[in-house]
């Protein structure tokens, strides 16, 4: 039995509309055999978490170029946890200052990708990370 394709939700949260990067990554992951669910622009942490839940995604990729990542990413992570979706891996892309990267990783982000990251690097990372299954029950 072949392994089913990895499902990843890609979303931009916050107000910035720079979607070049996320669209390139979406196409790149598609061509690498992923099922990419594009949630689009102007997503709120709440709407992103709802999408991840309903799509039963394995991964969530957030793109933020506005500098609001230290406000928005913790909120997404918190909501994922309260929704019982801690098995979903989160990657972040965009303009993230070096000094914020360890903070984001500490919070539970799996990896931060800067502008111009080669697509194969993202593909390799997602493929090599073990797929986590949800915890059997929620309270």
């Amino acid at each position, binding site marked *: 039995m072949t392994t089913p394709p990895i499902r990843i939700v890609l979303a931009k949260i916050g107000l910035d*509309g*720079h*979607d*070049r990067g996320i*669209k*390139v990554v979406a196409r790149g992951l598609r061509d690498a055999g992923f099922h990419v669910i594009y949630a689009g622009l102007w997503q709120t942490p709440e709407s992103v978490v709802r999408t991840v839940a309903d799509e039963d995604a394995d991964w969530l990729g957030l793109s933020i170029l506005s*500098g609001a990542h230290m406000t928005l990413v913790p909120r997404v992570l918190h909501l994922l946890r309260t929704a019982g979706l801690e098995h979903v891996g989160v990657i972040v892309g965009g*303009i993230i200052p*070096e000094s914020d990267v360890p903070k984001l990783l500490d919070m539970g982000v799996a990896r931060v990708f800067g502008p*111009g990251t080669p697509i194969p690097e993202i593909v390799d990372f997602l493929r090599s990370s073990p797929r986590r299954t949800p915890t059997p029950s929620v309270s």
Partner: protein
Amino acid sequence: MSTATERSAKERWEQEVAQAKPRPQPPTTVSGVPIEPLYTPESLPDFDYETELGYPGQYPFTRGVHATMYRGRLWTMRQFAGFGTPRQTNQRFKFLLEKGQTGLSTAFDLPTLMGLDSDDPRAVGEVGRLGVAVSTLDDIRQLYDGIDLEQVSVSMTINAPAIVIMAFYLANAQNRGLDWQKLRGTIQNDILKEFHAQNEFVFPPEPHVRLVIDVIEFCTRHVPQWNPVSISGYHIREAGSTAVQELAFTLADGFHYVEQTMARGLAVDDFAGRLSFFFNAHNDIFEEVAKYRAARLLWAETMRHTYGASKEASWKLRFHCQTAGCSLQDKQPEVNLIRVAYQALAGVLGGCQSLHTNSMDETLALPTEHAVTLALRTQQVLAYETGVTNTVDPLGGSYFVEALTRQMAEEARRYFDRIQQEGGVIAGIESGFFRREIAEAAYAYQRDVDAGRKIIVGVNAFTEAEEKPIEILVIDDTVEKEQIAALRAIKTARSQEEVRRHLDAIRRAAESGENLMPVLIEAARARVTVGEAMNAMADVFGRYEGAAKW
């Protein structure tokens, strides 16, 4: 076996080229256009100097819009700035003027760009972060406080709520006793490229364009030295387009504005001279120079022959230039200084009227003062030390540059035809034509980089294991709180009754189709906020979710 003398020089050269082993990276432009090993007179069949180039300052302006270009006056060195509160940005403006900058360029924060007030729940975390937060007339007053607005030209990079911000600016000028006739500056006010590329729009395309035309119409009549729109290819390129797409889509947008303004009953020569442009300066020097030259040629011929403009000013394409933000890398960020310098060179060799050079740290955060100063110094070295300003259009007559200019113009014309087939610019937006073209180009570029067909220094070649971190600017978290507190105070102090009256007036004007500028100027005085004015218009225009295909 023939001897060297029996074969022509050309044949010998061709044989040598055929035998030579090429480098692994194909010789293509940044946009992927293949380049010949050599350009000769044969590359320019039927070349006619007078009709294709002419003299600078004369139709078709291929060589430049002024007779003497930089021998007479240098370009305006205009660095984009803005962050935090209006007071903080005001200080940065004064700092830049002191350092020798000759014009101001205002960056607004994302909530303002999206027409949201600082206290809107959607603005959380973004107030004052990427630019200055402006919600009321008082913010505009503080922003330009102590700056002589009749002397310094001011540019404002804002689109969706451009008409509201322009109304604030004019109300503020009036309050300061300044003469609108003397105000000089530019408001970007180009909504079409937002739909193609940058996604800062609020209303559906048609009413949004109407607001653009309202500003053009009002400024034509009342603020004659103001550039009411800056038709921008910059963001189209940043979104990943090719140089030709940037050129063609920008000019097509310009033609759409011309047609819509003429449909208002304005004579083309009354406003066309105030239309300005904004292009990207990417890494490929010759491709960029050819793009600017083709842009001038295409604009001049279309304004003259399609729209019947008869004034020279209406034929001239004047443009601001900014180095390509998308070319900057977060790896070895100091290398960005060198990229920016070459890009600035392209802008100047291409005859720009004003120039912004990016700071090396912009892929990491907002630029520090140190980085901004180096960026400005780059322009000063270019202007005063390199000698490129000594003659007009120094690359004119290069077989290569002329052939590339021709090719670029031809390909742009083909795009104009395709846009026609799509049903025009608005139909192309609705069908997702522009977005798809740009996204596919961006993806093709990334695949070239990933496959090593294009080399990016420090990224896919010449990498370093250890990166030395550079100093970056940290935005104070107190900005948001401060800004919200100030806004709340204004909201409580004003007359709510008056605000309601003005919002009704905005809705009525939006409904009736009359020019919205006068009611917005009045509303500004009553401290109607950007968000409130935009919401009132949205009640009439509706909100736009974006084109269907991406």
